């Protein structure tokens, strides 16, 4: 009886008695969720356009951030001042690097394996992962790096909002992350729906044969998809890195994207967002209010339990394409 009270009543009582803590938890859940969503977005872009589950997405996040920091260091050493010119210059160069990476991946990985089963391509992305890890360590070194937030004009500090009799503290960098992520998602959504290239990406995802018949170049589309995923990885890397540091362990975060994708659907951009937010908020609420009861590991496993439930009852996710075929 006491246990039931502890699980089902007490947490909500706590939520009610300290609403400012609830707001804080919800906010942090939202921020975490948005960042998960960004990673999931990278997966969705590549999966939607080339049918490949890109295991290397996590390391692409790290690699992009490392390249940015590295190039900034180089530009700074060459005497490029003021700092923000060097920072944005490094950003532009990193974008070019991601484009080059996309082109190389298409040429060297996708094209030779074009008619192979999906599992082969998935394994190839494993290879890509280890290649990028090695390359990153070789070029940039294995120690953690710091993102140059000031030079990039990213805000620091926090807003303390008086609310519900207490305080809620909103980190400015978190607000920036949510804003930037929202803009990016909205932009990508519009891109897919409204533009010729967006339509071509959807076409290639749907049927290679039909796409070829209509004159679409599969190779070009793949480069664009991987480049877009690379940009998303770069933004994700900057945001995650700005909140802590850029280190190789960051790629583990990518594993969290899997429950997000299961929840939202592997091919849906809005799904990645909604899924990310549900998981992020769910995790934080669970950790804070049920953590003391169930042991503080909830953040680690809750996402996967939610994913399991979805796999049982709605495997295509909330927004995934329901496979309806006429028999």
């Amino acid at each position, binding site marked *: 009886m006491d246990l039931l009270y502890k699980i089902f009543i007490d947490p909500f009582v706590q939520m009610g008695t300290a609403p400012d803590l609830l707001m804080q938890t919800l906010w942090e859940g939202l921020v975490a969720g948005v960042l998960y969503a960004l990673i999931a977005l990278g997966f969705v872009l590549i999966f939607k356009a080339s049918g490949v589950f890109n295991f290397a997405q996590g390391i692409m996040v790290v690699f992009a951030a490392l390249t940015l920091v590295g190039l900034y260091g180089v530009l700074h050493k060459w005497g490029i001042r003021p700092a923000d010119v060097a920072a944005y210059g490094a950003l532009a160069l990193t974008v070019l690097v991601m484009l080059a990476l996309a082109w190389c991946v298409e040429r060297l990985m996708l094209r030779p394996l074009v008619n192979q089963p999906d599992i082969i391509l998935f394994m190839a992305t494993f290879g890509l992962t280890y290649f990028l890890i090695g390359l990153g360590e070789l070029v940039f070194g294995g120690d953690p790096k710091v993102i140059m937030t000031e030079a990039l004009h990213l805000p620091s500090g926090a807003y303390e909002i008086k609310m519900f009799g207490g305080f809620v503290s909103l980190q400015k960098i978190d607000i920036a992350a949510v804003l930037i992520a929202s803009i990016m998602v909205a932009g990508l959504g519009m891109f897919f729906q409204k533009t010729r290239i967006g339509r071509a990406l*959807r*076409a290639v995802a*749907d*049927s290679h044969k039909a796409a*070829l*018949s209509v004159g679409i*170049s599969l190779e070009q589309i793949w480069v664009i998809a991987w480049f877009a995923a690379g940009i998303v990885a770069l933004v994700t890397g900057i945001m995650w890195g700005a909140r802590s540091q850029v280190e190789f362990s960051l790629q583990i975060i990518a594993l969290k994207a899997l429950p997000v994708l299961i929840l939202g659907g592997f091919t849906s951009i809005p799904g990645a967002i909604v899924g990310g937010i549900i998981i992020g908020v769910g995790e934080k609420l669970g950790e804070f209010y049920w953590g003391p009861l169930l042991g503080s590991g909830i953040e680690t496993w809750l996402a996967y339990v939610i994913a399991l439930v979805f796999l049982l009852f709605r495997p295509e996710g909330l927004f995934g394409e329901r496979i309806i075929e006429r028999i």
Partner: protein
Amino acid sequence: MRAPTEQSIAAGEVLLSVEDVSLSFGGVQAISGVSFDIRKGEIRAIIGPNGAGKTSMLNIINGFYQPQYGRITFKGETRSKMRPNEAARGGIARTFQNVALFKGMTALDNLMAGRTLRMKRGFLWQLLRFGPALGEETEHRQRVEEIIDFLKIQAIRKVQVGRLPYGLQKRVELGRALAMEPDLLLLDEPMAGMNLEEKEDMSRFIIDVNTIYGTTIALIEHDMGVVMDLSDRVVVLNYGRKIADGTPEQVRNDRDVIDAYLGVTH
């Protein structure tokens, strides 16, 4: 029998010519030494028993298969190897036996996809979606709506094509091919699986496409009645070889053709 058009087909210039083409898959010889041509503005039927190599022939023409021997000359340019998207860019559109549509997209989106090659404005303009890009998008939309009206598929414009019945899917596929404004339209069994009324509709569409848009058409068809009615000239394949080539009348009375298969007129 079609009424003769004002333009004399016999005098028409050659749009596509297939010269001595052979194709084999491992040990299986799908096509051996086939030569024929397609003249501009005509409707050319390719017929033959099942397994004769008709679809393989179409696949060669639009680049899905590469022949081991022989050449294709299209609009004056000769090549032996070509990728399907290059053929599309060159002005060849294609429908498939089993319908190759973007099943997850609406009928309208499928047709708009057909306009891909015609969309000139660069990627950045498209993103910003104003000025020249918007005007172009509207123009394409207009063309697509014309085709939708022409094929009478207004009711299903926004329906996901994966859910449509087979006959309507074939019509959407034809629409998408038309949206490409091709010089040569390849139709692989456009009447397959249709009832009499649907066949009459499709026949009318094909004739209209030929007379109104002036598109040259090559079609594979099993229904002899349709072949006799629609086509200007017929090429007959059997076991990968050409056994007859001429007007429907000539072909119908050809001994080899009659021997090859008992063509039943519906």
